[in-house]
């Protein structure tokens, strides 16, 4: 479904993505993991057209996405956004997103899921961080698209809502969609992911199923496996850097 | 006895009112020349409607020459049309044209020469070199005439165009209600004393609307002076009273509403100066009172140059002029009092309608502008405002003594 072909990205002299060639195919849930600065956000942003690759190509369903934008109709993207237009109400924002992306939507499902009924007429500026994230999820996922990209979906969510979200994600997988998640919460990745893509210093270090990763590293859970990878590559200076 | 009385009264009637002599193609007299020959003092010569081409006509009898609505005298050879050489002559209701430019003789449609009590009333003088020329004349009235020179005069040299009304060595004359345009000077007065110019409209003249030279004890009131090179120029004269006139739209470089040069003891009051490049330009003039004038939207309201002493500037309105006042260093003993300055930024805490802090009308910018005229494009810029403010706080270039101690909070007029 998504295919990166020898993708390179330089920020000035900084080589962030070093010739990544990678295919991600659905259905299923893919966790995109890697330490800070490993290039996972850049990779996603290149796919979404926000970052322009220095060389290489990105294909979506067999067609290049570079300098295109209509392919994004088929993508639901949950971004890490903390600031919305302060003076618009939740309802206005929802109808705005519906206007710029026409099609069937299911915002009521999310409003119910997150108990947003009371918040609909409030301005975005007056909402708490958690509520804002709920609105963010609603806006991102209310369209029924074949590809879902979730960038740190758990940020600011209470456990109950997170549980509901997990449930929603697994349901979507059952409906045959491809879901790409980046997260710091390894337990979330472990609970959901079928496949793991692990990026390190601009390279794809691992691409395969969860069980293959655990086997490779000889560990029993994801957290240990990743710590093992980082230790073995000897790039880790201190424990602080293990934060993924 | 009865017959005698009638005879006497008839005689006196003729001596007072004179005979009526008519000229027209079908009248007893068909040419003006013949008719004039038969005129006696006190007669009225009526020229009926029609076009008459005549050579120079010297009027040496005290007669009334009157035209009809379309009586039109045209100069036969471009010479002067009428020369009045006798007192008690009236010329009325006649159109004149055809006096051409002459570099040797100042030919006019009507010349009055060495006599008095002449009336020139309601005539129309079109495209003549000079229109009306008064020479050594007293007690003469020029009233209600329409004088229109040549539109091309604006592009001509001064020698090529003549003045509308030209008076030289006259006394006690009245020039009123005339409409004068497209000449060199609308009204030119040289050595004219004790005379009045009232309610005239002088506009679109290439040089001055009204021009005084070496004239004393005159006044001009309620005139409208617009679109001239310079509105009114008063030079080398004394005791001139200028009131209730309107000076407007005298635009151009070296264009002034009123130009004063070597003037003493004059009074300039209740005039309106609107949108002139320089409303009043003063050079070497002393003891002049500027009272209750309104200066609105001029480039410069008053520009003093050369020594000007003992002038009094009171109760005027300075409204939205680009620059209110420019003074040269020799401005002595002049008083500014009770004027309204639209630029004034002071306050009136005691509520007596007089600002509590003096107004300093001379700004630094006017000096800069004097140095580099191009800086005109920086007017009203924040940088210039800052410079002006800095100068106001601690004056270096602008004189500290030029100030209005009692600036009004509201318009005087």
């Amino acid at each position: 479904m998504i295919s990166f072909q020898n993708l390179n990205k330089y920020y000035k002299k900084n080589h962030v993505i070093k010739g990544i060639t990678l295919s991600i195919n659905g259905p299923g849930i893919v966790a995109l993991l890697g330490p800070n600065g490993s290039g996972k956000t850049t990779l996603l942003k290149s796919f979404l057209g926000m970052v322009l690759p220095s060389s290489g190509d990105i294909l979506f369903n067999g067609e290049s996405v570079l300098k295109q934008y209509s392919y994004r109709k088929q993508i639901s993207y949950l971004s890490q956004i903390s600031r919305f237009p302060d003076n618009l109400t939740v309802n206005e924002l929802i109808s705005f997103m519906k206007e710029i992306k026409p099609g069937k939507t299911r915002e009521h499902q999310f409003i119910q899921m997150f108990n947003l009924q009371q918040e609909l007429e409030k301005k975005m500026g007056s909402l708490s961080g958690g509520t804002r994230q709920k609105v963010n999820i609603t806006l991102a996922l209310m369209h029924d698209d074949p590809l879902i990209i979730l960038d740190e979906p758990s940020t600011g969510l209470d456990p109950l809502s997170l549980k509901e979200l997990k449930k929603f994600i697994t349901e979507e997988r059952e409906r045959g969609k491809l879901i790409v998640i980046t997260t710091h919460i390894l337990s979330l990745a472990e609970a959901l992911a079928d496949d793991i893509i692990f990026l390190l210093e601009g390279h794809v270090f691992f691409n395969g199923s969860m069980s293959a990763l655990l086997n490779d590293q000889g560990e029993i859970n994801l957290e240990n496996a990743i710590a093992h990878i980082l230790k073995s590559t000897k790039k880790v200076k201190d424990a602080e850097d293990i934060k993924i | 006895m009865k017959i005698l009385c009638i005879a006497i009264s008839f005689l006196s009637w003729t001596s007072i009112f004179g005979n009526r002599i008519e000229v027209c193609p079908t009248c007893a007299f068909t040419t003006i020349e013949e008719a004039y020959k038969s005129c006696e003092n006190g007669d009225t010569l009526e020229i009926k409607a029609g076009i008459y081409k005549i050579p120079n006509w010297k009027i040496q009898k005290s007669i009334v020459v009157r035209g009809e609505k379309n009586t039109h005298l045209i100069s036969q050879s471009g010479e002067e049309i009428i020369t009045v050489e006798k007192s008690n002559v009236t010329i009325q209701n006649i159109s004149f044209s055809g006096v051409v430019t002459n570099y040797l003789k100042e030919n006019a449609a009507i010349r009055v020469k060495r006599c008095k009590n002449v009336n020139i009333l309601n005539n129309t003088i079109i495209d003549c070199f000079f229109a009306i020329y008064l020479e050594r004349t007293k007690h003469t009235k020029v009233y209600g005439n329409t004088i229109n020179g040549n539109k091309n005069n604006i592009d001509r040299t001064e020698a090529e165009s003549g003045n509308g009304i030209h008076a030289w060595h006259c006394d006690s004359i009245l020039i009123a209600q005339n409409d004068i345009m497209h000449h060199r000077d609308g009204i030119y007065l040289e050595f004219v004393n004790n005379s009045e110019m009232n309610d005239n409209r002088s506009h679109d003249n290439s040089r001055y609307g009204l021009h005084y030279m070496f004239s004393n004890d005159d006044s001009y009131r309620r005139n409208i002076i617009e679109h001239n090179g310079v509105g009114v120029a008063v030079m080398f004269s004394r005791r001139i009273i200028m009131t209730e006139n309107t000076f407007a739209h005298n635009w151009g470089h070296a264009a002034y509403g009123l130009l004063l040069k070597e003037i003493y003891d004059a009074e300039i009051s209740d005039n309106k100066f609107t949108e002139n490049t320089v409303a009043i330009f003063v050079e070497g003039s002393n003891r002049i009172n500027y009272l209750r004038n309104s200066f609105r939207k001029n480039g410069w309201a008053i520009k003093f140059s050369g020594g000007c002493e003992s002038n009094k500037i009171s109760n005027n309105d300075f409204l939205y002029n680009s620059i209110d006042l420019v003074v040269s260093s020799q401005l002595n003993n002049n008083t500014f009092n009770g004027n309204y300055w639209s630029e004034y930024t002071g306050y009136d805490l005691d509520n007596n309608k007089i600002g509590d802090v003096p107004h300093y009308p001379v700004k630094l910018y006017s000096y800069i502008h004097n140095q580099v005229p191009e800086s005109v494009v920086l007017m009203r810029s924040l940088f210039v405002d800052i410079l002006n403010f800095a100068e106001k706080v601690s004056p270096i270039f602008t004189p500290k003594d030029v100030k209005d101690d009692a600036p009004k909070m509201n318009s005087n007029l």
Partner: protein
Amino acid sequence: MLKILKYSFYEMIRSRWIFIYSGFYLIASMALLLLSNDISKVLISLTNIIIILTPLIGILFGTIYYYNSKEFIQLLMAQALSRWSIFTGMYLGLAAALCISILIGIGIPLIAYGVLGSAELSLFLLLITMACVLSIVFSLMAFLIALKFDDKVKGLSISIFVWLFFAIIYDGIFLLLLLGFKEYPLDKLTISMIVLNPIDLARILILMKLDMSAMMGYTGAVLSKFLGKNIGMIIISFSLLLWVILPLWTIRRVSMKKDF
């Protein structure tokens, strides 16, 4: 683009700052009208306020608005929208809100006072137009600055400097040049200096209405032709238009190449 414009405009007009901005103009105009009771004087005072304030507010609001909307812009970029339509939509919403503030703040009090029937109508219209043009030009510059510099503090400082430069420093340099080279013919220098500063352009257009009498006193042939005739009006309007087109074009170029 129109949808984005609509929402960005909604967002802006509900902003407290836009409210304060129009409120300021409203109060200033009303206070001036009450104080002087003379529409000519009010318009002259407003000219001074407008020439200073509209560029400053335009550039500050523009920069802050962009930085505040940065994340939302990223969200929009993940939608099926072109970058150009996102930026023009956001920009036009801002510009429309700024212009409406001016129209409300200055327009309503003066129209209520009766400027439409007065002799100063053309000056009033010119003033309002120039206020809007300056807002447009400087908010465009703001977008450009914010696009170029991701750091908010840096971007804001540069915006303030750009305003200072065009509002004050530029004219200072201009004046020094004029004084320094006063022995030489300065017409062409003067005209080029005017054309290169949008605030000067707007100011000269207003001067042509307000101070024509003084302008006519200038003797230099080229400049007086420029200031006195319709040619000058056309050149100035055209230059102002370029001041809109050039930043817009640069925004398009920069935004196409930028990584978000």
